[in-house]
């Protein structure tokens, strides 16, 4: 029974493989891009920009990642890419130290490594596409929050999960900035929403009734902003309690127009993806080397390089006046 079965399987596998590999045999440059969490709208919009760049440059783009932020899975995917022999790996690191081992291994195999969105250890990659440092994000968030409430009063934060590393970083810098510059403001609570919009709404509702003096809710995960906005809207506190945070224009447009959400802060994520691909290809073709001062891209012109950081530019503040101009 065993031998015929084996033979049958082998034959089937050969047949199928010839079909499958035939279509993959085009020898395009392969850039693999790893988001923190694939389902997150933030990274989906990154992918849109990356796709555009990939088409312009005629390369193959692999875009894969964990469905939830998970450092272990990120490592596994990178290691898979190493054995797949891709040309460039671009990573948004969930965990700095954790991913770096895998990235160093990739470099050893001659694969070019970039980081975007969140950096790894400096020796584990060539360049970091710096959309904004955690410090910069924290500052911008806090400054905008202070502007909205006149630098005075209580505010609360909604975070993705209690264990998401980048958000803890942002939160840290928000708190640093708060301490330095806004003594009259007070952070009264930090609640997790497990990256669930519905849970963010429940949490925000509870925050509102628990803290009657609350002036503002800052959500630093993208499902959190519309969730908090819906809570404020339902509580009838539109305008009285400000909502702001890190989020995507499309998910928040209706709340911004309704005056519930005041500002949504984000860099142009599409551009981030676009720039990452351009940088990756340049790196693979040896057009981008250490010490370069700028990088030219197709549609977006050139970007400045500072050390090993390629700068995307400052975070962008979307509000009623400009949000309709963006679609991502």
């Amino acid at each position, binding site marked *: 029974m*065993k031998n015929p*079965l*084996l033979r049958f*399987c*082998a034959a*089937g*596998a*050969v047949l*199928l*493989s010839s079909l*499958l*590999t035939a*279509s*993959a*045999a085009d*020898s*395009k*440059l*392969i850039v693999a891009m790893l988001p923190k969490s*694939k389902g997150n709208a933030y990274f989906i919009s990154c992918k849109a920009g990356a796709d555009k760049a990939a088409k312009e440059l005629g390369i193959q783009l*692999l*875009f*894969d990642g*964990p*469905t*939830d932020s*998970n*450092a*272990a*899975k990120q*490592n*596994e*995917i990178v*290691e*898979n890419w*190493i*054995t*797949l*022999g*891709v*040309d460039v790996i671009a990573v948004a690191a969930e*965990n*700095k*130290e*954790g991913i*770096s*081992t895998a990235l160093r291994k990739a470099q050893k195999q*001659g694969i070019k490594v970039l980081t975007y969105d969140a950096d790894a250890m400096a020796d584990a990659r060539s360049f970091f596409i710096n959309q904004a440092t955690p410090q910069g994000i924290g500052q911008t968030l806090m400054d905008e929050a202070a502007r909205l409430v006149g630098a005075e009063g209580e505010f609360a934060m909604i975070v993705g*999960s*209690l*264990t998401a*590393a980048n958000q*803890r970083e942002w*939160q840290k810098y928000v708190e640093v900035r708060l301490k330095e510059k806004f003594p009259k403001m007070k952070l009264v609570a930090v609640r*997790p929403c497990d990256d669930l919009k519905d849970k963010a709404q429940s949490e925000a509702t509870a925050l509102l009734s628990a803290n009657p003096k609350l002036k503002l809710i800052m959500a630093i995960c993208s499902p959190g902003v519309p969730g908090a906005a819906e809570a404020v809207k339902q509580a009838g506190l539109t305008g009285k309690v400000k909502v702001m945070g890190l989020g995507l224009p499309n998910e928040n447009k209706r709340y911004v127009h309704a005056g519930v959400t005041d500002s949504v802060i984000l860099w142009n994520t599409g551009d981030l993806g676009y720039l990452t691909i351009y940088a990756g290809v340049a790196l693979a073709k040896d057009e981008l080397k250490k010490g370069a001062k700028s990088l030219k891209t197709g549609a977006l012109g050139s970007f400045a390089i500072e050390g090993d950081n390629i700068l995307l530019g400052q975070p962008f503040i979307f509000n009623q006046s400009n949000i309709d101009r963006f679609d991502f």
Partner: protein
Amino acid sequence: MSTAAHAPASFNRYRRDWRALLTRHEMLLLYVLIAEWLFFYFAGTSTNRRGVIVGFGTWDRQFDILRHSCEIGLLALALTPVIITAGIDLSVGSLLGLCAILFGKLWHDAGLSIPVAIGLTLGIGALAGALNAVLITALRLPPLIVTLGTYSLFRGLAEAITRGSITYTDFPETFLFIGQERWLGLPTQAWIFLLVALAMGLLLHRTTYGRAFRTIGLAPEGARYAGLPVERRLALVYVLAGLIAAIAAIIYTARLGQAKADAGTGYELFAITAVVLGGTSIFGGTGTIVGTLLGVAAIAVLKNGLACLPVVMRLNAAEEMSGLFTGALLLAALTASVLPKILSNLRPRRHSSTQSIPPLSP
């Protein structure tokens, strides 16, 4: 007296038939695994632009699969005896997280040396398993509910202790060796995994403990009437599960170089799937370590192999596809396991109904 009828010759013939029957599930799984592997070997291997052979059919890939399977594999090993006694332990994934951060804390905050911290962590794992054990054996509570509670509790404690954010990193190279390097040709943790597998295999198949687990799973009352120490054996199973979860935590930490409260989230589900896929009956009594290993391998090969397929790569959906296929594989395995019984029941129609719907087992 017809003692002559029991000549050893006739015994041997029967034994062979029976063995074949027992191993049928494992053999089927082995065929599936081989077919899977061959398929991915041919379909998932190619030559890249620089003329290097890449993809599934490389040694590196095989080692990676092994490396990535160790933690879930360990949890599956821990769960095999649990499920053989007709129990279940949902808390192992959470316990992995708790042990990981306690290990980090012991080393980083308490300043203990790595070996001492490892020792203490294993102790904590066993202790946490003992909590499950006490609730299940002394209070006779259903394992499903007890471990559902500790599933929340352990993860919650991990988050509370680290306030969610603390991540322990910068472990010494010597420690990371366990998770990131190779030793004697294989990834270091694979040796630990194989050692635990061997130990569990021996425990389950070569000692009186394994006998007791099986008997308890098949007939808990019968085991009591045979004078077996039912409570003590059951307790042992859960303590062992805790201990192995702690080992998995150490390996996890060493592989990623970090200890964080979210370690091992959702692993319990994959581990249970692997065990059931490996032919261990969720009603208890039957199951082998070899089956569990094959189950783990089938899932791991599927997951990693899919990620190497050009079609799947183009869809950017390796993880979803592997989840989808794993679920389907599990359903197929379950259905295949009852199909012969269903078919044979179809003929004498009414008899079957006396043995009613299986209740929720654990």
